[in-house]
């Protein structure tokens, strides 16, 4: 088994393209998403009515604020007609912020408001269209981290194992005193080490380079990513049985990866109709991404996410056992 682990690490050291696929590609995509969904430098425009000068000055530090003399009768129509991002009003009951919807632009307005009302002034945000999505990379980072980690490791380990079959290196291993359990375990640990490196780099990059918010422990996030990656290795090697060549492994993406993206938290599970949301329990990415969300967004501890951790461990164990059974079907010994 150690021979397999060392061989995998030696192979990857000599194969720059695969190393790039595993480490650089997720970082590249994460960076791309950061620029696509992150802070664009956009300065939102709002009109303010009845707001004390001190508040206007505070807001003006991050927004373009125009004071108006009259409270608009239809704030949402006013916003659309004046091509601004919001209207803020103040009266004896407190401050009210009118926004069309919750998106990356209005999130900046909300951020400015929260800085302004630190003193404990009552504030209320009104949306024309209520949505639950913040549409910020920050609020979806757990989806991208989980999906990217699973996707690249799944493809990488699956394609490698197809290669083991087509190049008949697997035949050589099967005709050695190595047990089938050792072969699969060697593969799982070998690629597990690589995916551990990948996960650590991704999480550290997300936190310290992209400055994504992590309410909880970074170490717990790395642990979740590593568990998810182990699951991806087991899934990739198992499905490689059904692929005659490396290209056929790619054909699994629409069947295995894409549905998992839908259940990763991108779409709130409880809003999925016809009870289809319950299918989430059969997808490992669901457990990984929701565990990441709980740690990154809500700051939960490892004990709080034990359901998801156990889910990932069960998935990995079942897939590992299925791999051994499948390998036993291949060889008689």
């Amino acid at each position: 088994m150690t021979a397999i682990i060392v061989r995998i690490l030696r192979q990857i050291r000599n194969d720059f393209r695969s190393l790039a696929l595993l480490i650089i590609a997720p970082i590249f995509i994460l960076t791309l998403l950061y620029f696509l969904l992150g802070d664009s430098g956009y300065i939102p425009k709002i009109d303010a009515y009845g707001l004390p000068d001190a508040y206007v000055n505070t807001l003006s530090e991050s927004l373009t604020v125009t004071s108006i003399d009259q409270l608009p009768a239809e704030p949402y129509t006013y916003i659309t007609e004046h091509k601004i991002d919001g209207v803020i009003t103040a009266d004896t009951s407190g401050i009210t912020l009118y926004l069309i919807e919750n998106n990356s632009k209005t999130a900046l307005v909300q951020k400015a408001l929260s800085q302004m009302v630190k003193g404990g002034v009552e504030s209320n945000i009104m949306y024309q269209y209520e949505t639950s999505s913040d549409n910020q990379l920050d609020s979806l980072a757990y989806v991208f981290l989980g999906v990217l980690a699973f996707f690249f490791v799944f493809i990488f380990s699956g394609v490698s194992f197809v290669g083991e079959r087509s190049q008949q290196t697997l035949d050589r291993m099967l005709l050695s005193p190595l047990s089938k359990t050792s072969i699969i375990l060697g593969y799982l640990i070998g690629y597990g080490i690589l995916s551990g490196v990948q996960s650590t780099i991704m999480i550290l990059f997300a936190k310290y380079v992209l400055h994504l918010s992590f309410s909880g422990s970074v170490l717990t996030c790395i642990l979740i990513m590593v568990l998810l990656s182990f699951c991806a290795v087991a899934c990739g090697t198992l499905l490689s049985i059904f692929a005659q060549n490396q290209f056929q492994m790619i054909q699994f993406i629409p069947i295995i990866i894409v549905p998992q993206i839908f259940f990763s938290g991108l779409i709130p599970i409880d809003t999925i109709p016809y009870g289809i949301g319950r299918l989430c329990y059969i997808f490992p990415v669901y457990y990984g991404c929701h565990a990441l969300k709980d740690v990154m967004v809500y700051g939960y501890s490892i004990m709080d996410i034990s359901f998801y951790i156990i889910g990932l461990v069960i998935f990995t164990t079942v897939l590992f056992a299925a791999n051994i059974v499948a390998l036993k079907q291949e060889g008689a010994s």
Partner: protein
Amino acid sequence: MEIVIEGITKKFKEQSVLEQISFVMEEGSIHCLLGASGAGKTTLLRIITGALKADSGSVRIDNIPMPNRPILNKIGFMPQQDGLYNELSVYDNLRFFAGIQNLHGKEFDKKALELLEIVDLLKDKNKRVSHCSGGMKKRISLAAALIHSPQLLILDEPTVGIDPVLRRQIWNYLKDLKKQGKTLVVTTHVMDEVQNCDYAALLQNGHILVKDSVENLVQMANGGNIEELFFTNNSEEGKN
């Protein structure tokens, strides 16, 4: 090591690949499985090693029924596809295949250098396999099969893509191994190579057309070459 094959039958889906194959391969000799592509040679090899289950029949190696994992470290296998890792160097490939056979350290180094000299790859030992020619890969593959000094050597088309000079060298080495008491099973579709073997079995469509010592086969061919004998039997089979 002696191999006894009895009544091996194998079907893939509904297509019969091997039909009631029985014969004995004696210890310390070179046995050739001869036949065109798709004749069933590789399938038979995989069944002998235990890599594939037969539908019926049995294989015994030194009277031990196969499959049997403990006996596998006495078997060296060279697959038709070279069975090498392209991203690793020649030496690292040998190191891995030695490692899974529990051969490590100085013992491995000694054996690897000895084999690399035999297959004329000593100067290329640090070359990455992806940068090696087809002939070089065959030689590395042979060295990988021999790294743990097996008693039984199973070689699936070992000389395909190798130039005539080197092919002769490899056959000479295989004959040396035979002299050391090792048993060799070789598949080929090149008739000329049969002359290097002690026994040959002609396979076609999962059946054995002829099996005998090469000496007898040459006599049966009336002094002609074995290729003629193959075609004679082939056409008789067709008539039947």
